[in-house]
């Protein structure tokens, strides 16, 4: 199930997780250990177990964590033996690292811990500079150290080659003990730890900061944690001004700690170069009387708890001032708090030990609005109920009401004695569960004094709930349990409140009871209504839990079945409130709905209109020069046609030289409606075939965003209706995305691929589908995947609508988010006095600009791409600009504009650096996330729809890191598949495509192509890669494979066709140039070729990013003849790989037939006649 996890520990040390997509606390899969602390990130979770050891739980994923060990074999030539391993005494070792300075024989490599395994044995890397060689991988040089070449020359006296071996981390989805330290100062047992720092830098990938506190109050930092080293390498002590009891590390540069005396420590100087920071600053406790006991930090927030359980929020935190300015007291009393991703906050409430979520935390309102109790049910039926939290609350089933006695309530004892008391009553439970958490002084203190209060509260609070109707129920229930008890007393007091079958009571077990709670829980037993119990929590960590204020969560009501009739209500249930009255109200309401609404659904609408008009005021980008926005009246007139089909006309009334004029368009001629949202205007474009030819749509601007979307919805519905389109796209649909991330889909008709007279592609009708994607790929049959700008993988849910489409015109839509970076450039010029400064020449570009330098873009005036987007981070220097940067992110050049490089030379007079800021869009669409691997590219095998629904469909992807992945278990019924199979490569890849006949082609990041041999339905992963050289002096970007054709696009926009492909030699022989100005290519199962082209000239304007269709593609002429231009510009991606509808077969028409209908329906009929 997609979704990230909230980690919690109950007071018995059991670890549970709650998924953002779920509503049940799930017991951690590896439940053998009890834990005192957990601290989570998305990929992994760290914890201190009751044995005081540190464990890490790395979530499984289909992509292995593998690390490449390498060593070099060095040889020298001598006249007698030729090249041999006898080297000169002054030479390097025969086995060394790349520099030659370290002796590294093969047997000197050891696995770092028991959690690693070798993938295979050592082998020689035969790839040199991306090209495979057959020379045993040797590279030659005159002497060590020198530059090595792959060709042996007459003066090559030495040679070397690289040996590779991969090791793999195997302990995933389980608690793996972090190996204890062999060298250096050995830490004493840890009492707290906190992980964070994943936003500090992207290099190395997956780097984390892990801070820990030991029992003696020392602070430790774990070195070397990153993706391929999840355990880290060693503990380093960080000196502190005093004894620390607890520490918290945020996703970026905040680290705060609590000292024994109650003051707080703030780490300063944390940066990309120095994630450990440099010094501590003391901040006083929020309250002058009592010290702080707990602190938790996020990106730009700090929350603290003082000893009197009061909650505090620190004001004025930002990246320049990690200390903030002052404390604000917040509502609520908490035991501890956890700040997670997006600065969301969770806490454990003081009085009932429930997990509360802070609602309404947004970037504008970081302190949020209210605490809301998470009322998910626990899924631990498998657990022995001996340590059940209800039992500890003193509510056992019993036949009669009695006054609770002191012994059962455990007024003054700590929870450990409580557990003992429980053991006494629990004779049969073999393994006694001692709550290890109590060994932690902090928690045990809380448990002991809070729990008794709680017991009292629960019992007291329960009594007023008793009412006349309850009495019947409860006495009945009590009667039942008494019967149960009578027949099972021999088995001791073990019971569970989850399943009535197991509800057993030892007659002498306890004499405390609460009648109303018996009745309440009895209801709970029947249908899992409400929370089955009231778990007591000790620790929560939201560091791995990705939620934000807009995300719908199912955590707050576990009444999913009934809630549908009342979904609009926000049910703020607290566990105590799960009472009978609530259930009755739900039942009555759903019954009423059935009675009053459902039985009348078949009634027709009372009012029917045959003609209606909607009018509005808009602005129109006028057709004549000078082009500008002018006020117009806009109207849509709709009418019911003779056969009941609707049609409509659009009118734009405008003034031309004081004369009233109008422009109109028929709804059935509209081919597409494109929203164009910017931060200044809410506009959309309307295209007809004629307007597409002109590259000049009707552009309209509404006064408000809402008005624009109202119009778009209405117009889309009218257009869909007039095109006879409803519901979800068909299995043959053509999918595309625009540069704004909008998704459009078109239904192909058979004549689209007819030859020689196909449907002109400017007549194709496109409709929008909700969601936001960078690219979308379809294949057979009906399987569609998309990739977001943040590389998240999404699978099509089979629905439609979403986005701005409201309720009725949507189906099977889900929330979707996407994140992209907005970039601005800081430009500087060198002058002899001050060096580089922001004072440029008068002729220079803006000192803060966009990439072109033409537009001024400062940090403050740059807005998110449109009102749909919000900022989710602050501006930060981008060290990953193409071309490389120096340590401060600068790129140098001789002058603006020029080519930039990442190091300063004597000739450089200007420099620039790129700043990035993340923005996020939240929308809806028929898409479901396929976590957790982020993707670069995806391909789905095109195939005919005649397959059986159970048949597997091949889907391949390239992960964000460049790994090649094969998706297993994809069928029509489960388009998301089950798991990724990792296919080894020696270099990262960037594009992949699978043809109808299992031809798998891929492009590596170095620009060369590869063909995968022996891919078949039986061996979906194939056996090995064949290197295909790229066209001369070109680096390939993308490849697409149809039934037999293979096309590729290179970095310079050239489209290449692969020549000489035969079944016996599927790699082909050479690349043939087809066209330039091509950005993307999609080859379909009929070998049809569609591209996204740049610089398409229309009669009014030029467009980039235009959909084009190759005409004249025939079995004997797979390269086709010319291009037909369709919708654009601004298109980014197209996939025609699901369209396997062959055109009706026709013979070549005679000359007399030239007048035939270009739409292509007619030739089929005419053709038969003529062809005789």
């Amino acid at each position, binding site marked *: 199930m997609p979704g990230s996890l909230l980690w919690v520990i109950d007071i018995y040390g059991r670890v549970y997780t709650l998924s953002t997509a779920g509503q049940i606390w799930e017991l951690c899969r590896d439940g053998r250990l009890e834990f005192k602390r957990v601290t989570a990130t998305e990929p992994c979770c760290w914890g201190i177990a009751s044995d005081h050891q540190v464990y890490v739980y790395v979530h499984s994923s289909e992509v292995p964590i593998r690390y490449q060990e390498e060593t070099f074999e060095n040889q020298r030539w001598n006249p007698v033996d030729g090249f041999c391993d006898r080297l000169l005494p002054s030479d390097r070792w025969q086995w060394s690292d790349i520099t030659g300075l370290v002796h590294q024989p093969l047997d000197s490599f050891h696995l770092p811990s028991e959690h690693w395994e070798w993938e295979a044995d050592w082998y020689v890397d035969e790839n040199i500079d991306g090209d495979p060689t057959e020379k045993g991988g040797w590279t030659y040089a005159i002497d060590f150290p020198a530059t090595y070449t792959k060709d042996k020359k007459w003066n090559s006296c030495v040679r070397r080659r690289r040996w590779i071996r991969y090791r793999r981390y195997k302990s995933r989805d389980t608690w793996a003990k972090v190996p204890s330290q062999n060298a250096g100062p050995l830490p004493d047992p840890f009492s707290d730890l906190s992980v964070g720092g994943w936003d500090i830098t992207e290099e190395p990938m997956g780097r984390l900061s892990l801070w820990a506190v030991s029992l003696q109050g020392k602070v430790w930092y774990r070195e070397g944690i990153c993706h391929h080293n999840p355990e880290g390498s060693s503990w380093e002590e960080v000196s502190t001004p005093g004894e620390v009891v607890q520490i918290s590390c945020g996703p970026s540069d905040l680290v705060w700690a609590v000292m024994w005396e109650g003051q707080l420590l703030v780490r300063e100087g944390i940066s990309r170069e120095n994630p450990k920071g440099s010094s501590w600053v003391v901040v006083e406790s929020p309250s002058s009387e009592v010290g702080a006991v707990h602190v938790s930090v996020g990106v730009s927030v700090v929350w603290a708890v003082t000893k009197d359980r009061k909650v505090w929020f620190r004001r004025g935190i930002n990246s320049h001032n990690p200390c903030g300015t002052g404390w604000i007291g917040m*509502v*609520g009393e908490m035991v501890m708090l956890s700040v997670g991703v997006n600065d969301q906050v969770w806490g454990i409430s003081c009085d009932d030990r429930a997990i509360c979520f802070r609602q309404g935390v947004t970037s504008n309102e970081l302190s949020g*609005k*209210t*605490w809301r109790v998470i009322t998910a049910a626990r899924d631990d039926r498998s657990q022995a109920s001996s340590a059940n939290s209800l039992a500890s609350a003193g509510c056992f089933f019993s036949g009669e009401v009695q006054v609770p006695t002191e012994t059962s309530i455990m007024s003054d004892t700590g929870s450990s004695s409580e557990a003992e008391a429980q053991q006494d009553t629990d004779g049969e439970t073999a393994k006694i569960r001692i709550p290890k958490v109590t060994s932690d002084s902090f928690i045990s203190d809380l448990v002991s004094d809070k729990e008794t209060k709680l017991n009292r509260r629960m019992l007291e609070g329960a009594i*007023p*709930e008793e*009412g006349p*109707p*309850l009495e019947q129920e409860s006495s009945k229930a009590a009667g039942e349990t008494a019967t149960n008890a009578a027949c099972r007393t021999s088995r001791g007091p073990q019971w569970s409140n989850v399943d009535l079958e197991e509800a057993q009571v030892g007659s002498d077990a306890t004499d405390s009871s609460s009648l109303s709670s018996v009745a309440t829980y009895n209801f709970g037993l029947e249908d899992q209504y409400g929370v089955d119990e009231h778990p007591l929590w000790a620790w929560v960590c939201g560091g791995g839990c990705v939620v934000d204020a807009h995300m719908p969560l199912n955590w707050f009501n576990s009444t999913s079945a009934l809630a549908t009739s*009342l979904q*609009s*209500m*926000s*049910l*703020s249930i607290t566990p105590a*409130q799960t*009472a*009978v*009255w*609530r259930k*009755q*109200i739900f039942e*009555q*309401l759903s*019954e*009423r709905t059935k*009675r*009053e609404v459902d*039985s*009348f659904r078949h009634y027709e609408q009372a009012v029917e209109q045959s003609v209606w008009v909607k009018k509005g005021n808009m602005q129109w980008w006028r057709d004549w020069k000078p082009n500008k926005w002018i006020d117009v009246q806009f109207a849509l007139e709709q009418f019911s046609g003779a056969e009941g089909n609707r049609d409509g006309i659009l009118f734009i009334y405008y003034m031309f030289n004081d004369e009233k004029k109008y422009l109109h368009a028929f709804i059935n001629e509209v081919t597409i409606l494109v929203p164009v949202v910017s931060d200044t205007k809410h506009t959309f474009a309307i295209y007809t075939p004629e307007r597409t030819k002109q590259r000049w749509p009707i552009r309209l601007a509404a006064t408000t965003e809402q008005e624009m979307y109202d119009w778009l919805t209405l117009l889309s519905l009218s257009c869909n209706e007039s095109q006879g389109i409803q519901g979800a796209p068909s299995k043959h649909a053509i999918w595309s995305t625009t540069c704004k991330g909008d998704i459009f889909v078109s239904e192909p008709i058979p004549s689209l691929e007819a030859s020689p007279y196909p449907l002109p592609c400017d007549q194709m009708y496109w409709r929008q589908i909700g969601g936001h994607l960078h690219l979308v790929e379809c294949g057979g049959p009906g399987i569609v995947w998309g990739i977001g700008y943040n590389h998240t993988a999404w699978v099509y849910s089979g629905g439609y609508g979403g986005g701005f489409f409201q309720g009725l015109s949507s189906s099977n839509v889900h929330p979707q988010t996407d994140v992209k970076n907005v970039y601005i450039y800081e430009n500087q010029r060198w002058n002899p006095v001050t060096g580089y400064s922001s004072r440029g020449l008068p002729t220079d570009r803006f000192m803060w600009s966009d990439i072109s330098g033409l537009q001024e873009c400062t940090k403050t005036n740059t807005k998110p791409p449109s009102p749909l987007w919000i900022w989710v981070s602050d501006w930060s220097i981008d060290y990953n600009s193409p071309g490389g940067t120096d340590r401060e992110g600068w790129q140098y050049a001789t002058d603006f504009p020029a080519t930039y490089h990442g190091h300063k030379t004597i000739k450089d007079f200007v420099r620039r650096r790129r700043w990035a800021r993340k923005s996020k869009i939240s929308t809806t669409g028929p898409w479901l996330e396929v976590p957790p691997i982020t993707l670069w590219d995806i391909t789905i095998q095109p195939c005919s729809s005649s397959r059986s629904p159970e048949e597997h469909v091949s889907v391949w992807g390239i992960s964000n890191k460049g790994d090649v992945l094969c998706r297993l278990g994809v069928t029509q019924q489960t388009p998301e598949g089950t798991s990724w199979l990792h296919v080894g490569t020696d270099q990262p890849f960037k594009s992949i495509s699978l043809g109808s006949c299992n031809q798998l082609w891929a492009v590596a990041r170095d620009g060369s192509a590869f063909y995968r041999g022996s891919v078949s339905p039986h061996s979906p992963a194939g056996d090995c890669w064949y290197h295909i050289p790229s066209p001369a002096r070109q680096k390939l970007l993308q490849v697409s494979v149809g039934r037999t054709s293979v096309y590729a696009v290179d970095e310079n926009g050239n489209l290449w066709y692969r020549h000489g492909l035969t079944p016996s030699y599927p790699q082909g022989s050479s690349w043939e140039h087809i066209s330039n100005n091509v950005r993307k290519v999609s080859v379909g199962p009929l070998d049809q070729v569609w591209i996204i082209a740049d610089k398409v000239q229309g009669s009014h304007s030029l467009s980039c990013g235009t959909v084009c269709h190759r005409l004249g593609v025939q079995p004997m002429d797979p390269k086709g003849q010319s291009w037909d231009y369709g919708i654009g510009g601004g298109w980014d991606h197209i996939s025609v790989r699901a369209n396997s509808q062959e055109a009706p077969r026709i013979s070549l028409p005679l000359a007399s037939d030239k007048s035939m209908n270009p739409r292509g329906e007619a030739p089929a009929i005419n053709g038969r006649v003529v062809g005789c």
Partner: protein
Amino acid sequence: MKPEDIGEMWFEYEGTPLKWHYPIGLLFDLHASHTALPWSITVHFKDFPEKDLLHCPSNSVIEAHFMSSIKEADALKHKGQVINEMQKKDHKQLWMGLQNDKFDQFWAINRKLMEYPAEEGGFRYIPFRIYQTVSERPFIQKLFRPITAEGQPHTLIDLLKEVSPFAVSQGGGEKKYQVVIHGIEPMLETPVQWLSEHLSYPDNFLHISVIPISTD
């Protein structure tokens, strides 16, 4: 029917003129809860019952009545602070949401009217109205707090006992009255705060009908 005969339209059910300024669900519960659906009512264009009904010359009158109800309810709940802090467009959105049957639009604003400070455990007073067909008074409305002095939640039965004791009086163990909200009979143990948050009508009032149970 001649055009000059067409006066202001009004509705009637079994001799009772129906007040347009009551929610229709309430009218149904109050007058017709025992009849089979669909509910047949009579439309009149003549003889407007001046003493029973308010005139409704345009839909702006309906809007004004709706907004005044919301304001009154908020005065009870939050001393009117929430509604007064809202902007004109928020008020408009409440009305437009209701008028166009757009729940999300309506609830986006109404949500704020349903909030209360956590430490107080509920509204200041519960906005409610109790309607009895048997009574001459159109409805009963009093100040009633959601929480007892001891901090316990008040339930529906507490409310009825205080405001309309006969509705819960039991003669000979027989229930004589039905207490209906939104066509259902919530259990009398239901906390009024919860009812106010979840079963209030769009005008933010909890409209409670007390209907005699016919003895036959």
